C-alpha cells in the first residue's frame, strides 16, 4: 500500500516526510532526547467581508505547550499586495505554507500579467494541504480584494475550504464566532467592521487561554491595504507602584581592602568582523 500512487497528490510526502518522521519518532527516545514540542499559535483569527473589502484580525500570542513563546508575533501573513492570510495551528507550518504560496503566486502573477485573485491563492493552498493529508497543521483565514470584489475563505489543515462572509479559526474561534453571529450584518461600514473584528478577537483573547496580548488588524480594500499592528493593545503590562531597591548605606561597610591585579599584555590580535 505504500506504493499506492497518488499521482500529483502524495508522491513527495509518502516517500519523504512520512518515512522520515516515523524513523525519528522511533529512534529519538532511544537516544535519550524528547521530541521538541511544536510551537503552536493557540490563536484567535477571524475575517469579515464589509462594503468595500475585507477586514482580517488576529491576536498575537504564540504558545509552546503551556508557556507563551512569543508575546507579540505576527499572524497576518502577506500573500500578495491585495491578499493577506491569517494563520492558526502550528506556527512553522502557517509561516512556511503562506511563504511558499506567496512566492508561487507572485510568479503566477508575473506570468499572467494580472493582479492575483483570491480564489487562485485558495486553490493553491487547498491543493497543497490536501496533498499532505492534514500533516501540515495550518488552519488559515484567507482574505483579499481582486477584480471580482472582496473574498474571504477559511482553509482547514486537511484541505477543505469554505467561502463565507465571516469566518473564525483557532482555539478562540468559538468565542469570536459568538460575537460575529450576534453582530454581523452584510455591507457594514469600515469603522463598524473594524470594531466588530476587534471585539471578536478580544473575545478570544479574554476567554481562551491559547490567545492573548494585542489585536492586529488588516483592512484590505481595492488598491489599499492598512496593516494595523498593533491596532489595540488589550493587555498592556502594568507599571510597578513601588520599588524594592534598598537605599545606599542600608548595609553598613565594616572593612574595605583593594588588591590591584597587574596583568601584562602577552599577545594582541585583531579579527575584523565582516559587516558588508
Amino acid at each position, binding site marked *: *500500500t505504500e506504493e*499506492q500512487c*497518488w499521482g500529483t*497528490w502524495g508522491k513527495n510526502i509518502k516517500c519523504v516526510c512520512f518515512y522520515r518522521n516515523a524513523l525519528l519518532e522511533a529512534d529519538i527516545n532511544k537516544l535519550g532526547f524528547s521530541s521538541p514540542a511544536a510551537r503552536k499559535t493557540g490563536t484567535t483569527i477571524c475575517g469579515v467581508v464589509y462594503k468595500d473589502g475585507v477586514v482580517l484580525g488576529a491576536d498575537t500570542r504564540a504558545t509552546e505547550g503551556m508557556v507563551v513563546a512569543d508575546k507579540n508575533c505576527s499572524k497576518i501573513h502577506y500573500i500578495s499586495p491585495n491578499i493577506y492570510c491569517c494563520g492558526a495551528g502550528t506556527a512553522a507550518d502557517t509561516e512556511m505554507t503562506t511563504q511558499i504560496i506567496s512566492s508561487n503566486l507572485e510568479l503566477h502573477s508575473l506570468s499572467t500579467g494580472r493582479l492575483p485573485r483570491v480564489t487562485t491563492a485558495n*486553490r493553491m493552498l*487547498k*491543493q497543497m*494541504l*490536501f496533498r499532505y*493529508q*492534514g*500533516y501540515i*497543521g495550518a488552519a488559515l483565514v484567507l482574505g483579499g480584494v481582486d477584480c471580482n470584489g472582496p473574498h474571504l475563505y*477559511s482553509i*482547514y*489543515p*486537511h*484541505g*477543505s*475550504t*469554505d467561502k*463565507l462572509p465571516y469566518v473564525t479559526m483557532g482555539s478562540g474561534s*468559538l468565542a469570536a464566532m459568538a460575537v460575529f453571529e450576534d453582530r454581523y450584518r452584510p455591507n457594514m461600514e469600515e469603522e463598524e467592521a473594524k470594531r466588530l473584528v476587534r471585539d471578536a478577537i478580544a473575545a478570544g483573547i479574554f476567554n481562551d487561554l491559547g490567545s492573548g496580548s494585542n489585536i492586529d488588524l488588516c483592512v484590505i480594500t481595492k488598491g489599499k491595504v492598512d496593516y494595523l499592528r498593533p491596532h489595540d493593545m488589550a493587555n498592556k503590562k502594568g507599571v510597578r507602584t513601588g520599588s524594592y531597591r534598598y537605599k545606599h548605606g542600608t548595609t553598613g561597610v565594616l572593612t574595605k581592602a583593594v588588591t590591584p591585579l597587574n596583568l601584562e599584555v602577552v599577545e594582541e590580535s585583531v579579527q575584523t568582523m565582516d559587516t558588508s
Partner: protein
Amino acid sequence: MCVCVCVCVCVLQCCRSAAVCLCSSARRGLSCNGWSGTIMAVEFEGGVVIGADSRTTTGAYIANRVTDKLTPIHERIFCCRSGSAADTQAIADAVTYQLGFHSIELDEAPLVQTAASLFREMCYRYREELMAGIIVAGWDPRRGGQVYTVPVGGMMTRQPVSVGGSGSSYIYGYVDSNYRAGMSKEECLKFTAEALTLAMERDGSSGGVVRLAVVSEQGVERQVILGNQLPKFSTV
C-alpha cells in the same frame, strides 16, 4: 435462524465501516473536518431534483452552517457531496477538470454516466485513503435525467432515487414508502424537501437550510429553504 444470520451480517458490515472510519481518523491524527449531513437525488421525466442539508461539522462544532454541498461538475451535471469535506472537495475539483477536458475533446456535452464513472474510478482506486459518499446527478441529451450513486468504497450504480450521508439512515423508510415512479417536478421537490427535513430533524450532523436544485434540459434552477420555512411535521 434466518433472523440470526441477517443480524450478524448487518453487525459485521457496521463494524467494518466503523473500523474503516476509526482507521482513517487515527491515521490522520487530527480530527478530520467535515462529517457531513444528508444528500438526496430523484429522477423525474425531463431531469433530476437534487437536495442537501447545509451543515459541516468539526467534531461537535459546526464549522459552516450554510455549506453548499451541491457542486456543479459541468453545465448540467451536479454532484452531491457527503463524508469528509476535504476529500470530496478535492475529488470534485479533479473530476471537474477531467470532465471539462473530456467535453472539449468530444466537442459535445458529456454524459452523466461519464461523470459518474470518473468519480467511481477515483473513489475506488483510493478507497483506503478516502471517506467520500457522492451522488452524481444530471441531465444529458442521450438518456435524460439520471442519478448515479457512488458510496464509500467506490461502487457505482444507477438508481431512480438515492439518499446518502449520515442522515440518510433515518429516511430510508420514508423514501421507500413515499417514492412513486413518474412523479412531476413539483412532487419531486416536495418529496426531497420533506425527506431532508426529517433527516435534519433526527441527525445531529445534518441541519441548517435545505438546498435544492432542478437540473433539466432548460438548465439549472436553484432554491434555498430557510430554517423557518421548512415543512412541519408533528412534534412529539
